[in-house]
């Protein structure tokens, strides 16, 4: 069958090339365009904005809890509502904010950083966003209707099982897991294939930016860890809905099976959130120290090592469950050993800062704040790895303090730094540096005021997840301090929101590469055009924009009428194929709606699987069926 070749870009004048590519890759205007787009930048931007909205909601839940806890024996919030609040807080922050926002950055940035025109499987990408959105909206609507889960983000059975959690609250939670995991798994596949096969020619494995490495390892961790919690949550739903017995000790089941499945996912989950953040820190420290990140190979190997080791630690969440002592001790060692690759990363960053010429712009401030807080949290994590110490501080505010140090210090600070850093690329506008520094100062002080005293509360015996505490416990003053700190921290985020809104109201004025950064994403326009690059760059070094100051080498010979991406070989990125990339389509959205109907239906009846399987299949066939006379899917 003869292939219709279409117009090639060879020999086109720059202006015409740009115009024709923008037409081919562009997204139509209006609602239809918005619903059908498969542009990774638009989907990624939506992901980021949605995730930050969920951050706000989770933050509001936290503020409500801090209000209740600011004094002893307060009666502002009933225990029933408090339990829903802390469940929503944890669930939102982990499943609807932290993981998605990291993946959102990957969706937006990875194709730009590896120099391609769209992410691999862009329709799957659009689908994953819709599924994520619907899942997140579902769980919050459920909360608003008093069907909010109330058994914690860990949902331990038997408490979350059919006997002790009547109603549909936990079912909504378990299905929310399915939604978010489906979307996370989809993105993991896209990111891996994009990194493996769509890198610009010449970007061999040792030239991949560190952020991309981090996202690649994260995606593999997602691929292997998320199925564990999906298995668990499916079992939970089956126990609740069909009366099955996975977790019923009287019929041969076991409550700890849930904990094993949950933490086999749950601990890698922490690193799924943390590894992309290390990638962000590497990029920021490199750019603002004005030198290549020290120890590229050390850093890459550390990232991979952390990814592997993260699957060998889950039992340290279960030291108080009475597992065999020797087994527990081995997990002490493995948990402590992950300090080595993490330590190497820290040392490499410090070496980069030491040797470089640091510039203290806002992203850099957040990166430094990251080192200070993350090292602290990591070290208290070494304490938690010790079985005896763990039996004392497990499930107290000491642990709350610890994981907020590693999650906020270790992930949110880098994320905020990354937002300041890449905001000009996303929007064409720079965020205000003055507001940014205020934001950092308030966030850093507020964060430490909130979470440092929690260590003391934990040592003073205050358990987690209590909706109140006795007046004579002596915890009141510290809790008031914590609540005050939390308010300050919250205000810092409002300042950030104001900074973003104010910037978006200005005219776009950011140059393509405002920080003089070396990565390919800065070779694209700010914000990037629909096709990202007029011509696909030819990469000859690890820091292309630093080494090729005269301008990047590029390749030609791709179609301008059809969406084509350059597929390259895995290791050395030698050009291999010109694959077609899908156009805009409505089917991902319709599939996501069908999926949503199926998932929500199963909360109420097992037959929903049967009812909705048929429309699901039909929709998927419609999705994949070739639409054009010219085969271009």
């Amino acid at each position: 069958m003869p292939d219709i070749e279409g117009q090639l870009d060879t020999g086109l004048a720059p202006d015409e090339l740009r115009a024709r590519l923008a037409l081919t890759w562009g997204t139509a205007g209006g609602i239809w365009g918005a619903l059908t787009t498969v542009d990774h930048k638009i989907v990624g931007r939506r992901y980021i904005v949605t995730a930050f909205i969920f951050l706000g909601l989770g933050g509001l839940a936290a503020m409500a809890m801090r209000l209740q806890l600011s004094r002893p024996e307060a009666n502002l919030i009933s225990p029933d509502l408090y339990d829903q609040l802390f469940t929503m807080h944890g669930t939102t922050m982990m499943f609807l904010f932290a993981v998605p926002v990291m993946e959102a950055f990957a969706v937006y940035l990875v194709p730009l950083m590896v120099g391609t025109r769209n992410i691999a499987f862009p329709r799957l990408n659009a689908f994953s966003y819709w599924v994520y959105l619907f899942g997140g909206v579902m769980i919050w609507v459920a909360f608003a209707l008093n069907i909010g889960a109330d058994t914690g983000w860990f949902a331990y059975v038997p408490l979350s099982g059919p006997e002790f959690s009547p109603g549909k609250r936990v079912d909504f939670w378990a299905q929310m897991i399915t939604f978010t995991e489906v979307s996370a798994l989809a993105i993991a596949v896209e990111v891996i294939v994009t990194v493996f096969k769509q890198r610009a020619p010449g970007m061999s494995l040792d030239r991949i930016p560190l952020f991309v490495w981090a996202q690649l390892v994260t995606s593999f961790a997602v691929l292997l860890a998320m199925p564990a919690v999906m298995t668990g949550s499916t079992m939970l739903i089956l126990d609740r809905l069909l009366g099955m017995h996975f977790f019923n000790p009287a019929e041969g089941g076991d409550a700890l099976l849930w904990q094993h499945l949950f933490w086999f996912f749950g601990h890698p989950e922490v690193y799924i959130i943390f590894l992309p953040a290390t990638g962000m820190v590497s990029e920021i420290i490199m750019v603002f120290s004005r030198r290549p990140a020290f120890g590229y190979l050390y850093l890459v190997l550390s990232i991979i090592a952390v990814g592997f080791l993260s699957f060998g630690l889950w039992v340290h969440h279960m030291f108080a469950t009475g597992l065999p002592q020797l087994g527990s001790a081995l997990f002490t060692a493995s948990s402590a050993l992950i300090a080595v690759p993490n330590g190497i990363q820290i040392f490499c960053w410090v070496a980069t800062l030491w040797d470089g010429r640091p510039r203290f712009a806002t992203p850099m401030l957040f990166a430094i704040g990251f080192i200070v807080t993350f090292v602290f949290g990591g070290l208290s994590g070494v304490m938690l790895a010790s079985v005896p110490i763990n039996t004392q501080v497990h499930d107290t505010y000491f642990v709350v303090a610890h994981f907020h140090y590693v999650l906020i210090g270790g992930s949110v600070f880098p994320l905020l730094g990354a937002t300041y850093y890449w905001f000009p690329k996303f929007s064409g506008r720079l965020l205000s540096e003055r507001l940014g520094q205020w934001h950092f100062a308030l966030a850093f002080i507020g964060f430490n005021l909130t979470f440092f005293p929690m260590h003391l509360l934990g040592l003073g015996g205050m358990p987690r997840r209590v909706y109140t505490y006795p007046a004579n416990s002596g915890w009141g003053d510290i809790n008031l301090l914590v609540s005050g700190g939390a308010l300050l921290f919250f205000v810092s985020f409002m300042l950030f929101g104001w900074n973003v809104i104010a910037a978006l109201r200005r005219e776009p004025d950011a140059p393509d590469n405002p920080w003089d950064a070396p990565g390919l994403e800065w070779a694209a326009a700010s914000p990037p055009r629909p096709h990202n690059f007029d011509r696909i760059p030819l990469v000859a070094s690890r820091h292309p924009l630093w080494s090729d100051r005269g301008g990047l080498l590029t390749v030609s010979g791709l179609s301008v009428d059809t969406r084509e991406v350059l597929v390259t070989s895995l290791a050395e990125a030698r050009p291999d194929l010109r694959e077609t990339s899908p156009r805009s389509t409505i089917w991902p959205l319709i599939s996501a709606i069908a999926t949503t109907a199926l998932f929500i239906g199963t909360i109420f009846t097992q037959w929903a699987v049967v009812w909705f399987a048929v429309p699901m299949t039909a929709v998927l066939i419609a999705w994949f069926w070739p639409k054009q006379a010219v085969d271009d899917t």
Partner: protein
Amino acid sequence: MSEPGPAADMSALPKYAFGSRMTTWWGSILLIVMESAALAYACGSYLYLALLNPDWPLSAPPPDLLWGNLMTVLMFASLVPATMAKKYAQREDKRKVQILLVVLCTMGTIACVIRGFEFGALNVRWDTNAYGSVVWFILVVHTTHIVADLIDTFFVTALFLTGHTSGKRFSAVEDDAVFVYFVLAAWLPVYGLIYWFPRVWSP
């Protein structure tokens, strides 16, 4: 940034290929990795519960072997058309691929029927006890793979029978064959666990 002219011309590159050169192949492989992980967790849960309960398989007799054995035979048999389909797809032999796809569809449909009998031969209900829950769970997880593979095969067959046989479609046939291999590879541990483990296991 001023740009020097293009340094290399890509227009001679092909638009599709077979195997690991294609992005879709990698997509299928990663899907398989993910599904293998899920199946591994299900099987791990089975072993966990089996080690916990001294009287495994609790009160139930082990599943009857007939249908499980038939299924194993059928799976191995399906390797033949799958491998041939892969070979002829790489040669872009439309006629032979069409025939082999129809054969694969038929075998997949028979597999679904056998699977129905397998559920009947488990000798335990899903809500009888934890053993029943976990064997049903594993078998359903594997059934979703069979069904997904069957739908995919039907889809590709429909494409080939309606004239959508441009080059890239042959690559889809190859991906489908890879998925057939996976369904077999996933079946062997499941088969051993469900049918043979309760027969040979004594704590």
